[in-house]
């Protein structure tokens, strides 16, 4: 049973894993996406509509990512180009997308079917040999392909941020945009890179909710997962690989909570649901001065004569 719960934690961690690894990169570039919830929701509805009307789940994933990036470009134009507040823009976008997604859903699906039709999903893949290892096999190696993709992406993004030139520029623009500017690299481009990476993985996380977990769309499908992703980034110290571990921890808490919902101890569930948020607050308090990208959520507008 413990193995069951631990294995259950993985699918529950995938959306927050995907969303958090990109957000970590984006925040490293100084772009805070309060609207990550909006990106995920956009990814979900786009994935669902394409999967339902076209029937190709790979195309659905691509469109979900593009739709999420499109929303992010609105955030980017306001905050990176025009220097608006990232927080206000993010909250505005969350409200806007919450509306758009539901209008799309009701206009394109609900009019014709009161129960959302199920779409084709990504099947779990048993990795040969590895999936037969006791305990570890069922937990880690009999999962959704998007989970494996998330693990690979978290390592790649960690490498990208830490060891590549563009990664260096992204970290630098999150600390001090002026230095990047004087070094001859455009802070605007560096921030857009972070933003696009962040929104792409968030859109992927949204797509996973439909194509890897539920099989249909519901207006409240993201249910605060975007905010959990923000929490993970903080708890993981803005490191994509640590995001992998923390998102699994939060996913496992979610799995335990679900277990309690059928076991007759339902009233423990809401307290477990609050744990990730409370945990993040404690981390913020304990580690308050160690590391936060210095230019996080601070607009950079070049002084022109």
């Amino acid at each position, binding site marked *: 049973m413990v193995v069951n719960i631990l294995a259950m934690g993985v699918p529950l961690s995938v959306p927050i894993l995907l969303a958090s690894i990109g957000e970590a990169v984006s925040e490293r570039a100084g772009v805070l996406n309060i609207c990550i919830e909006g990106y995920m929701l956009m990814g979900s509805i786009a994935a669902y509509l394409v999967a339902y009307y076209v029937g190709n789940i790979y195309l659905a994933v691509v469109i979900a990512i593009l739709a999420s990036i499109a929303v992010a470009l609105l955030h980017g134009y306001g905050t990176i180009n*025009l220097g*608006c507040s990232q927080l206000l823009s993010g909250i*505005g976008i969350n409200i806007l997308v919450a*509306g758009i997604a539901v209008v799309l859903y009701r206009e394109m699906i609900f009019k014709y079917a009161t129960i959302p039709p199920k779409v084709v999903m990504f099947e779990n893949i048993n990795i040969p040999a590895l999936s037969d290892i006791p305990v570890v096999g069922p937990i880690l190696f009999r999962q959704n392909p998007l989970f494996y993709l998330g693990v690979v992406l978290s390592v790649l993004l960690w490498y990208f941020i830490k060891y590549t030139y563009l990664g260096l520029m992204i970290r630098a623009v999150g600390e001090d945009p002026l230095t990047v500017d004087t070094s001859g690299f455009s802070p605007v481009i560096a921030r857009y890179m972070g933003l696009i990476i962040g929104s792409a993985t968030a859109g992927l996380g949204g797509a996973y909710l439909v194509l890897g977990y539920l099989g249909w769309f519901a207006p409240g499908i993201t249910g605060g997962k975007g905010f959990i992703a923000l929490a993970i980034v903080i708890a993981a110290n803005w490191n994509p690989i640590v995001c992998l571990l923390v998102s699994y921890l939060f996913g496992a808490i979610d799995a335990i909570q679900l277990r309690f919902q059928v076991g007759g101890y339902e009233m423990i569930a809401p307290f477990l649901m609050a744990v990730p948020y409370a945990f993040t607050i404690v981390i913020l308090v304990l580690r308050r001065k160690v590391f936060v990208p210095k230019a996080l959520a601070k607009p950079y507008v070049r002084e022109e004569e």
Partner: protein
Amino acid sequence: MRLPLSQILVVIISVVAASAVIAATGYNIIYVFTELVYGAFGTPYYFSETIARATPLILTGLAFTVAIKGGYWNIGGEGQAWVGAMFAVTIGIFADLPFPLHAIVAALGALVGGALWGFIPGVLKAKLEVNEVLTTLMMNYVAYWLAYYVINWPLKDRTIYAQQTYFIKSSAIFPPLAAGLRAHSFLIVALICAIVAQLILSRTRFGQEILSLGSNLAAARSGGVNVGRTYTKISLVSGALAGLAGGSEVLGFMHNLDIFKLAGLGYLGIGVSVLGVNAIGAIFAAVFVGALVSGADNLQRALGLRVSDAAVNVFTGTAIMCALLVPAMLIRLQRVWKLRGKKRVRT
């Protein structure tokens, strides 16, 4: 190119953008707008619905406005409203007091609850320099799950299936403004709060301190303002206002607490604050959003459109984005024009 023009532009562009959305879904724009406006202001009853929806938004809008004037990012109105609502509903159900007193005590409870929830991130910022954006955001969800527990277990109305608490006693209800209306007398509390907030900001020393913190932190510090203490005070006031919003919904509108019916109040309040700019403006911005809610309800009846709440979000979101982007674009344009002018002089 100061405020009026840019705000008129904001309104025009919001309307155009909203029309585009309506046109994209294939409905007649003029018909939709007529029904929307009629549903918000067309009859005294519809107008009272607008007011009923606007009342808590005035308070969450004020909560954000007061804080942001001091550079304090209270994103936690949502959670503070939940805690305020929990305090109000508990007092409303269990306390045994005569009518006006019971309602007032319950409202004060909401105020205290919101203030307490707002105080935690405030004091963390003041004493330990913990970033309030992230703590207030996280505390929204802690409050939500706390409310989820309270609504589903200790205060659950066992006679019905829905996730609701027991109803409060009639002595704790803020009565409707007129018989048969849902607009209620908590509106008066909200309006008084708006006026007091405006007076505090413009006329008092505390207001001066808030504004100096918001405009130039370093100058405020060297000018002798106790920065930490001011942040703490702001967080208390802001939390109290958001808590009152939760109390308003419980004591005036719903008369119980429903897990589905309070969500979004805090975030919409931030939108109201952006649209309203200052404390008095928050009243009008809240009426605007309230009108959208009430108007969209009518749209649903008129068109059989099952999009009412979603349409409100589309319009409000569009308006917020326009309110942010349009002034910034105007400033950018102005700059470009000035630069061109300068270059011409030089050559």
